């Protein structure tokens, strides 16, 4: 596992070490140049002061001072090139003198050599180069030793400072760890460094969405459980009545009621499942081109027997005007559910001998599906609320029909999924109800991401979706 702290420490220390090394090298070369200049200058002065001093011939090896490896070596020649003096006879030096500064190489190493005329003699001073280098090296060393000593201290400091710097992150981590599905309060954003704040803000937004999604889910489950009690109570009572039945005729009637009760309970549970399936992010099916006209025709065929049984005139209105197949990009299965729920709803509330029209039309780029009926209609004030789950309008009182309160909620959910707009208006000849679903002719590729921000709970998010 990578650790930002360890990585930072490593790279900072590496950088520092490189800097120290560079400083040492720089110091060394700088010191060497300076030492050369200094020595050379001294020698010039010295040579100048010797100019008039006469040297007699001195026996070789009589020189007194400094025989160490680093010591200066002095030679003196007369005008005829006869060596008058050699301070260290064991030294091997160039046997000739070239006036001024030269660098010489003998078998005893590199030498810095300075020769000058002093009266009638040539004076030569030579020094082994390594002496100068040693001096420069020791100067460089003196410069970097304190830095090297400081390095571990600096490392420790970096370690501690980074730790301090990461404290807010640890606090955030601890706060996140304390969150649970039942406790999703936002994290405190105050007093956080600017680098951590965007993370916490993003986390809080996620928590918000999560909380909303969970609350919606909880409400849905509570509502669903509550709604299931009603048909189950009915079934329970109907079963008891069947048990009590004294005659065959009574029993038959009771069992008939019981069957109807079971059908209702089954239908409600099916619709609950459909609604749950259409929840954003639950089951992402690929969008494909769907011919709404063909879909409407199929659904009308399916509902024809039911319509006939209620003596309702159910039909499809042919699109007029500029045509071309009304194709929308969508989930064919979900769209079938949408159309069938709308037709089912219309048939349910339209009294016998009424009429239900399904129309598919193209308005510019928009495909409009309309289901109109001659039922009791929905008062304008209730037209948005009827799309709420389990909402049953007071207007249904007149009819014996009692829906699950889910049909239109499912329609709305599917419409949202397809970025379709849904609206209610007056039905046929100003009576009854019409429901308009307006689809964008070719829904964008990302149609699945409509309606709500990407659900945090949704498995299968990001599944490739084919576009048309």
């Amino acid at each position: 596992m990578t650790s930002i702290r360890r990585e930072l420490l490593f790279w900072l220390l590496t950088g520092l070490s490189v800097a120290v090394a560079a400083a040492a090298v720089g110091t060394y070369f700088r010191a060497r140049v300076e030492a050369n200049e200094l020595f050379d200058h001294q020698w010039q002065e010295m040579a100048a002061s010797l100019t008039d001093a006469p040297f007699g011939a001195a026996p070789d090896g009589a020189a007194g001072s400094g025989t160490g490896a680093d010591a200066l070596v002095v030679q003196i020649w007369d005008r005829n090139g006869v060596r008058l003096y050699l301070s260290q006879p064991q030294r091997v030096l160039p046997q000739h003198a070239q006036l001024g500064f030269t660098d010489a190489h003998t078998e005893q190493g590199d030498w810095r050599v300075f020769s000058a005329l002093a009266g009638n003699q040539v004076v030569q001073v030579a020094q082994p180069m390594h002496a100068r280098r040693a001096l420069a090296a020791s100067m460089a060393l003196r410069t970097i030793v304190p830095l090297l000593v400081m390095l571990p201290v600096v490392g420790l400091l970096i370690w501690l400072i980074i730790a301090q710097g990461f404290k807010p992150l640890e606090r955030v981590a601890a706060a996140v760890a304390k969150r649970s599905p039942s406790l999703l309060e936002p994290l405190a954003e105050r007093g956080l460094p600017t680098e951590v704040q965007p993370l916490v803000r993003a986390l809080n937004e996620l928590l918000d969405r999560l909380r909303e999604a969970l609350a919606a889910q909880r409400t849905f489950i509570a509502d669903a459980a509550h709604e299931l009690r009603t048909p189950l109570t009915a079934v329970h009572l109907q079963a008891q009545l069947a048990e009590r039945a004294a005659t065959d005729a009574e029993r038959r009637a009771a069992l008939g009621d019981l069957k109807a009760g079971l059908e209702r309970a089954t239908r409600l549970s099916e619709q609950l499942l459909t609604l749950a399936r259409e929840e954003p992010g639950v089951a992402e099916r690929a969008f494909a081109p769907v011919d709404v006209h063909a879909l409407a025709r199929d659904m009308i065929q399916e509902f024809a027997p039911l319509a006939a049984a209620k003596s309702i005139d159910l039909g499809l209105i042919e699109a007029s005007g500029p045509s071309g197949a009304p194709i929308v990009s969508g989930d064919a299965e979900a769209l079938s559910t949408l159309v069938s729920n709308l037709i089912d709803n219309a048939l349910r509330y339209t009294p016998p001998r009424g009429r239900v029209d399904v129309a598919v039309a193209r308005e510019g780029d928009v495909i409009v599906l309309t289901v109109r009926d001659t039922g009791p209609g929905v008062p304008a004030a209730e037209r948005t609320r009827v799309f709420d789950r389990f909402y049953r309008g007071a207007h249904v009182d007149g009819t014996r029909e009692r829906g699950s309160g889910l049909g239109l909620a499912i329609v709305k959910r599917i419409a949202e999924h397809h970025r379709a707009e849904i609206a209610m208006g007056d039905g046929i000849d100003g009576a009854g109800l019409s429901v308009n679903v307006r689809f964008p002719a070719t829904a964008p590729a990302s149609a699945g991401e409509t309606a709500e921000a990407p659900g945090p709970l949704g498995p299968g998010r990001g599944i490739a979706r084919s576009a048309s």
Partner: protein
Amino acid sequence: MRVLLAEDDPMIGASLRHGLRQDGFAVDWVEDGRAAELALAEGVHDALVLDLGLPRRTGLEVLGAMRKNGDTRPVLVLTARDAVADRVAGLDAGADDYVVKPFDLNELAARLRALLRRGSGRAGRLLGSGEVEIDPATREVRFKGEPVAVSPREFALLEALLTRPGVILSRAQLEDKLYGWSDSVESNAVEVHIYSLRKKLGADFIRNVRGVGWMVARAGVHR
């Protein structure tokens, strides 16, 4: 005993009406809160079986208005919400008892009988006068200790008289106890039932006060 049933679900309502009738109650069924209030205003029902989730006026609103008007008739609440808070809300609003959906028909009938019994100031489950004793739960009638078979309507009539012994009940009052709105009442039905009961329980058990109505003697008077 005549009971008003306020329940908006057609299946539950139909089943309850059917079942409670089998148990000997006269049942009137309304499907919304406003209809329930109108029916209660008639004052003919002995008890109210009230669903809380009614349209127009919720069950709690009906109950609150009822208690505010000083109507003390027993109310049994049907609720789908079984959280303690919901049950407490119902009881606080003046309900005498509640059952949570889904419930058992027999249990509902038993609780209803218990409410009616308490409402009439009795602790025991038996009603009696003289040598006649009836059990509203089992719908048994005993005369001198021997079981006597009676029809449901006869039993209802007997129960109405025995619930208020010593009080004269008019034909209209007795008809109210015996028949719901949808039942057709033959003009001399009460007389027919009383004639039949007199044959089974003795001629002087039910006394006729001419021009006023019928009564049974207060318990113990004959002993």
